[in-house]
């Protein structure tokens, strides 16, 4: 398998994530879109580590990355909960109070 194969995988995952971010009407699904994007980039880092034979470095980077990811998702989930408190649903289209 070539590096290009993994690149294609990463691009496809990224497109899925971005599409979800752009077209979803749900706050939680937006977070899921972000998650898929992060998966894509995790795969890229591991692939790079594999092909440059720097797997130890790549693994340690991925471990740190995963910790960061969890913290961000916890905070984001807290914010979603807060928004739900006000608007009683997860509709992203109500998120347009700030404009201009």
């Amino acid at each position, binding site marked *: 398998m070539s590096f290009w194969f993994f690149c294609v995988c990463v691009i496809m995952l990224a497109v899925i994530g971005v599409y979800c971010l*752009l077209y979803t009407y749900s706050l939680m699904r937006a977070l899921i879109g972000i998650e898929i994007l992060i998966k894509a980039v995790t795969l890229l880092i591991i692939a790079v580590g594999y092909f440059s034979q720097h797997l130890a470095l790549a693994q340690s980077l991925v471990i740190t990355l995963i910790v960061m990811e969890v913290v961000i998702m916890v905070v984001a989930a807290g914010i979603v909960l807060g928004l739900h408190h006000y608007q009683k649903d997860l509709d*992203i*289209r109500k998120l347009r109070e700030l404009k201009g």
Partner: protein
Amino acid sequence: MTPPIMTMLVIALPIFASLLILLTPKRWPASQPTILMAATIASLFLSFSLFGKESMVSFPWLGGGLDFSFRLYQFSAFIVAAVAAFSFLIALYTLSFFRADNQSKLFAFYLLLSQGLAAGAVLANNLVVMLFFWEALLLTLFGFILLGGQYSFKTAIKAFTINGITDLCMMLGIVLTIFLAGTATMTKINLPLDTLGATAFIFLMIGAIAKAGSMPFHTWIPDAALDAPLPFMAFLPAALEKLLGIYLLTRISFDLFQLKPESWVSSLLMIVGAATLILAVLMALIQKNYKKLLSYHAISQVGYMILGLGTAVPAGMVGGLFHMINHAMYKSCLFLTGGSVEKQAGTTDLEKLGGLGWKMPVTFGCFLIAAASISGVPPFNGFFSKELVYDGALERGTIFYVIALLGSFFTAASFLKLGHAAYFGQAATQTRETKEAAWPMLLPMIIIAALCLLFGLWNALPLNNLIQPVFGQQLAGHNYAGLPHNLFLIVMTVIVIGLALLNHWFGVKRYGSGLKAADHIHYAPGLKQAYNLAEKKFFDPYELGLKAIRLFAIIAWGLDRLIDWLYSGLATSAARLLSLVIRKSHSGNYATYLWWVIVSLAGSMLYIFMVK
């Protein structure tokens, strides 16, 4: 004290005094006028004692040839002394002009700050340093106008915008000049007016003549006349800005660049001057307000100075510069009489004024002298400087001379109207109880009026000591002191003044001396003159002439408003429209924002790989 220290002190002293004034607490009401008077008197002495000395001061600054350098020599010392003198007189005047405490405090602050900054701009020997002080003056201008009360904000913005734009031009000019000359030190620059040189010159010229208040950068001055406090008008537009603007114009024309009579730049300057003087005076003729009428004259007289300097022949140059100092005197005197009238009678509306001549004899006397000066009546100072400008204009082209003479005629006519309406005739009921102003207000007027007379009768004093040394070598073999040499010019001037008198007499005769018809009377004599001329030489109906002159005045007015609109209307509304479109596009939908990011991402990648 050595001259370098004194040079620095002349800049620093007023600025420090101004900050001191800002810091004085309200509990000590006497401290502020004390500081103001002490600082102005001290800097007056300082600048007069600097007279005739030369020095160069320089501190290392930005590096790369940009030094904080100042140069004291004959010309800059002269302007600095004049600035200090006006500052002193206006300070004296304001002692009893302002009623509100806070207003007088801020006015004193701005006055001293302006004085210090102006001294810095004049003494600077480095273009960037000069720009530094020049731009800072913009702030005091803004602050001054803001003092006028709640309606003055719009005017202040207008003044700020116009001056800001012209200063921007000047900045470009300075950058170009530095690029051409390879240095920013003014003493080292002497450039020919080739294509690039002329471009740089014109940019610098825009900055200079806009400061002086020439058309088409004048539109804020009449507005400020109504909105801003009157001592401001007497100080900045009438005196300080003329001194600075014409100083810079002189420096760039004959010092930094080599302005020659045959160049097209010289013709351009003359056209600007001639247009300014005739259009503004036509505007002045139809005004019905004391202050506004004066403000249009403040514009018109700049035309003479620019015309004089623009001729680039010795007589014109000397005349232009002489007119600058004369104008600063008589115009601030006129504004000060206006201030007295406003303070005492409570209004400057000519329809409500009248018969003040007997109630305010000193003010009236000063007004008479200053009005005679501005109208060019011998033997007052304005006469001599105008004669020199005429001389120069005649040498370059008859048309310029004719326009200048015509301007003189209208000037005389409008001052006859103003004097008549304000000081003679019947007083309106509101102003019947008017009394003479307090002595701190009268003293500056008297001093300036006396100087007007002195500079006229003994014109060798300013000409030999102040004006002619400025041009040095360029004037070799000329001396313009004493009576004008060209008898033809004197005869023509006297004829024009006579015609103006005659014209006024006709007007009064025809329409009666009713105050409400004042402006109408002063239309009509102009028309009658045209009518008589037409009857003698051409077949020109009276009505047509009336319409033509009316139309001309309307066109002048329209032109004035158009320029005004271009500054304050078009640019603002375009910005507002764009702003609206941009705000509408921020719909609050985060997906839209994300689309922008993704499109930019794709675009920049495409761009990178295409270029590669």
